[in-house]
């Protein structure tokens, strides 16, 4: 008996040590990736990065047009995608909670949520770039909007479902029409969660490269024309990192650092928003 017990204890300790090692392994990558990123990215970080255009190989420059392009594309994508996402989520949580349509949309939305983003790029190429005959910033932001929609739909539905029905009943009992009840009561109660959804969507698209490769393409120069190719930070990183030029590679690292910091800040903010809400 004693030996069996000892064997069980040993097996248990071994797996526990393994699980500890696995956790260290998982966290190790995060430390490693962020460490290298900080080391490589910081050395290239200077004011010029934010004030100068992307340079031709062999000369110095910055990432201004890429950063601006990314900001514009992301903002447009959120402007297009958020209303559709919120309205769709509203239908699912408020009007058709037990509809057949809702369960179909929920299923399809979950598929879209994890669909390969490069396929979204092909889709937008087929429906926008090819008919228009040229790459454009508009196509890029629509491609990103297609990625925003499922994220926002999901969080909006989840958050509205959490709103207590007593609030809705109270609103109905004083004669408030349903649409006003949703806008004035339900949205207000679910606000923090819905904002979180939009933040997560922004975090998701600000690093997306694949759908932009053949929609917004890239642009060496400053461009405010959304009907023409627009530079974006991820695509510039892709191009510069794969180039043989040392200064381009250095700029790619700096760009990578900027994106990662922005994305991590966004996701931590989103997380903080939901936790304070849970505690209160």
């Amino acid at each position, binding site marked *: 008996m004693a030996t069996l017990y000892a064997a069980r204890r040993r097996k*248990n300790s071994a797996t526990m040590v393994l699980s500890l090692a696995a*956790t260290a392994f*998982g966290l190790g990558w995060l430390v490693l990736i962020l460490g290298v990123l900080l080391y490589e990215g910081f050395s290239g970080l200077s004011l010029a990065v934010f004030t100068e255009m992307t340079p031709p190989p062999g000369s110095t420059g910055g990432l201004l047009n890429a950063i601006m392009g990314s900001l514009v594309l992301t903002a447009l994508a959120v402007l297009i995608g958020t209303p559709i996402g919120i309205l769709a989520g*509203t239908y699912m949580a408020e009007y058709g909670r037990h509809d057949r349509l809702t369960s179909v949309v929920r299923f399809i939305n979950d598929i879209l949520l994890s669909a*390969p983003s490069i396929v979204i790029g092909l889709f937008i190429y087929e429906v926008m770039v090819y008919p228009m005959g040229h790459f454009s910033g508009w196509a890029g932001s629509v491609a990103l909007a297609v990625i925003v929609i499922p994220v926002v739909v999901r969080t909006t539905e989840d958050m509205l479902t959490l709103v207590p029905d007593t609030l809705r009943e109270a609103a109905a009992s*004083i004669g408030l*029409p349903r649409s006003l009840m949703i806008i004035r009561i339900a949205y207000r109660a679910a606000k923090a969660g819905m904002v979180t959804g939009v933040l997560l969507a922004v975090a998701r698209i*600000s690093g997306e490269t694949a759908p932009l490769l053949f929609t917004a393409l890239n642009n060496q120069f400053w461009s405010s024309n959304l009907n023409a190719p627009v530079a974006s930070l*991820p695509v510039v990183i892709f191009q510069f990192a*794969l180039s043989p030029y040392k200064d381009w590679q250095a700029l790619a690292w700096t760009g990578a650092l900027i994106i990662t910091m922005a994305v991590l800040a966004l996701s931590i903010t989103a997380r903080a928003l939901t936790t304070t809400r849970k505690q209160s």
Partner: protein
Amino acid sequence: MVDLALQGGAVRASEAVSRSQALARLRIGDVAFRHLTRAAAVTVLLILSGVILSLIVGSLPALRQFGFGFLVSERWNPVTENFGAIAPIYGTIVTSFIAMLIAVPVGLMIAMFLTELCPQWLRRPIGTAIELLAGIPSIIYGIWGLFVFAPFLQDTLQPFLIAVFGEIPVLSSLFAGPPYGIGTLTAGLILAIMVLPFITSISRDVFDAVPPVLKEAAYGLGCTTWEVVRYVVLPYARVGVIGGVMLGLGRALGETMAVTFVIGNAHKISASVLAPGTTISATIANEFTEAVGDLYTSSLIALGLILFVITFIVLAAARYLLSRINKRIG
């Protein structure tokens, strides 16, 4: 009641507008809003059907030209316009397989650590840190993989594998060839790091959902922590874990940028995992903007269609399994 709504500014209250007119306007607004939300919900469906339709239409020329042979041919020659998809399909499956081989056991181990072993105050920070891994954009994994991870593997793991398995008959061909650094194995390892957080966080959630009574009963019988996890938690959470694994697999199959950096983009099937290869998504990302001629473009879109069909099946299965476990919990 309605006056409240009127004051709120939803309907401009003027003396001339009678009460019944105001009510009618509210009713119209109500109906309009309902239809607006319904239209938005239908839009989600339209997007997915649009994706499928546009991919099918775009890939028709290639499928008409090559027929079923497209799926099994290894040729990929832009000059003679002769295309086949088997090399990228093979690369996609092999890299995802390597990724799952590593990420599934490690992810389950971390989930076990977080739910059973970890002190309460440390659970949230560690869980958050692992989830931050999921938030890092894939292009960052790509640039890191190309400049840091691949050279590292070239100096350490790959020579080691060649030295160890070089003499063993079957395994020697699996690890044959010079250590390039980049290649199928490197891509698989990076994918493993990328899908790890997905598997971990879903497994942790389903482990957490196991009723404490069950675990306490097993502990009460004198089970060790490992025995409780192995014989109580895992069987109970099985469906959810499989769902989480499938979800991770869906990510791995469709992952583009990180793989594009390190796979080497070679359109051939090699027995060795150290050799460069290609995946569906990497091929599209690398070649689409440079593709000249309708047949070339169409072949790349056909690759996209294949990728979409594969991931659709995997993700649909994952969602089905996860919805089953959610029903049981809820």
